[in-house]
């Protein structure tokens, strides 16, 4: 039976009553089909290929190479970089977020800071690497940082640049959720500022804080463009190695390497994001 398609994305009855009654969920089919083709299918491909031989038979030996020292060094490298940038980003970002949140709700500072954070959190990739190169690279304007090409500190500093704004964006609602009454109640019961943060403010913000930190971790894990533009000779992290595997023509052994690495990466990110989601739910219960 034919149904009047109102837009490319919709196959739903637009003339009520006179059409045969189709279930409403059919209207979501275009979306699910699209996501299925362009997200789930490629993911499926890489997961499956990670465990297949070139000849097509199953080969789970690939998993053991994931634990091999070479591959492990990439994961460790990624882990180090992500940890540094997430922790630093979370701590500094939290301070900035608090500074923004404690100002006028409608003021220019807040508006400016939010818009700026929105832009800067997206400002990564090659352009950011160029900016830092201009600042503290070999021909750096400020000075030449001898550690600029060191891993993970040089690149870590660059990562912090976009991690802090992201932290501000994600953590600010949590700080807004701290009701003034809690602080006032605490003070009238006799607490000092330090005691307030230790017993009330801190514990209340903790889930949101650690959740946001996890998000920052996942964010750093997925980043590729920045580190590639920073330096592309040595692969320290998993994304860099994936890129190398994809563009190298060394041999059949590498065909699965990219798949395996990508699979490992997805697992790692998934674990982190699950932690984030769980902590978010706890934070939402208290602070909304």
């Amino acid at each position: 039976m034919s149904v009047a398609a109102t837009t490319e994305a919709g196959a739903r009855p637009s003339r009520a009553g006179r059409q045969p009654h189709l279930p409403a969920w059919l209207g979501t089919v275009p979306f699910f089909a699209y996501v299925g083709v362009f997200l789930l299918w490629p993911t499926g491909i890489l997961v499956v290929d990670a465990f297949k031989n070139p000849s097509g038979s199953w080969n789970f030996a690939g998993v053991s190479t994931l634990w091999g020292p070479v591959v492990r060094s990439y994961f460790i490298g990624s882990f180090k970089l992500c940890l540094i940038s997430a922790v630093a980003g979370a701590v500094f970002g939290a301070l900035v977020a608090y500074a923004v949140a404690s100002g006028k709700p409608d003021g220019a500072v807040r508006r400016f800071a939010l818009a700026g954070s929105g832009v800067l959190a997206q400002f990564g990739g090659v352009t950011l690497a160029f900016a830092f190169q201009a600042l503290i690279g070999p021909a750096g304007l400020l000075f030449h940082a001898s550690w600029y090409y060191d891993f993970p500190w040089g690149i870590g500093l660059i990562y912090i640049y976009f991690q802090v704004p992201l932290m501000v964006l994600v953590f600010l609602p949590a700080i807004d959720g701290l009701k003034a009454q809690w602080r006032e109640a605490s003070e009238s019961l006799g607490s000092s500022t330090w005691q307030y943060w230790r017993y009330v403010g801190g514990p209340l913000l903790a889930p949101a804080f650690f959740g946001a930190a996890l998000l920052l971790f996942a964010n750093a894990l997925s980043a590729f463009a920045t580190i590639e533009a920073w330096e592309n000779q040595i692969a320290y992290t998993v994304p860099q190695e994936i890129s190398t595997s994809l563009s190298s023509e060394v041999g059949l052994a590498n065909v699965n390497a990219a798949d395996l690495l990508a699979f490992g990466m997805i697992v790692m990110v998934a674990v982190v994001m699950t932690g984030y989601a769980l902590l978010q739910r706890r934070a939402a219960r208290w602070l909304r």
Partner: protein
Amino acid sequence: MEGLTRRYGPVVALDGLDLTLRPGELIALLGPSGCGKTTTLRLLAGLEDADAGTISVGGRDITRQSASKRDMGMVFQAYSLFPHMTVVQNVAFGLRLRRMAKAERERRALEMLDLVGLSEQSSRYAHQLSGGQQQRVALARALAIEPQVLLLDEPLSALDAKVRAQLRDQIRRIQLEVGITTLFVTHDQEEALAIADRVGVMRAGQLEQLAPPTEVYSRPATPFVAEFVGLTNRLAGTVSGSTVTVRGQDLPLVDLGIPAGPVTALIRPEAVTLASESSAGSGPLAGSVIAITFLGATSRVTVNLGDTTIMAQLPTSDATELSAGSFVALTIRPDPVLVSGADDNSAAASEA
């Protein structure tokens, strides 16, 4: 508190307020929003600083003291409790800050919870309790530290009507039992009249009247108080000598120094009754009934007098024969009345 002044930029929230609380009494600060009652409370608590004036408790000047050093217990309108702590942890919080031993403070916290009737909920969290229960816990928490003064900032405003009435009486009962000096801020005059030892009616940063509830109600000091507390009829009248003539009736005045001339008389609906048969007839205080509002034991009857309307509060038994459109004759009880300037042109009957 003496000469308290607080400004927010160009806005004067408190204008030289003087207020003294006697030990063990409950004063309710009543007024419309923006009148400064909450500001007064917050200044007393130390949550804000006064621009001028002094605050002393028990003879000691605490104006410069920070909130955490003052010995006050406070209950807020909403979001009082710490969401990440259980009820008993909330109540024990102040004691924990004072470094009381764990066993001791838990014992004391449970004692307080018992006082407010919630000892069974001790290990629950705030979001698992109803609004009324949360406020009771907040009260227990404030009292646990044995403060000198208890401060309540519209604690019932966020609750349902039925819960409000129950909790109001419970708060009063506990306050009397503990004997603590209390400042209770509200915009609901029924609340204030029901539980206070003295009511302070505030407007625009100043106290208009501070007196026991009955006095505030039946002998309002200013027209504002008369209008804010309870219902009032505003009728045109003429002053001559020591009486004011309102629609043919001579009524004694509260203030004897009013110059002769036209005024607006403020008359409570309870003072308006049905005229007896003998003086019935279409006098100036007669007209047809517009509406009857059944309030239980009494009914409020709104009558059209031609050029204005008047409200009468009658025992329901008197009002049963009346219906919309029926003709009634009314008379005003000869109690002393308050008057205000003749140029007040608001509607005949105003509600608080």
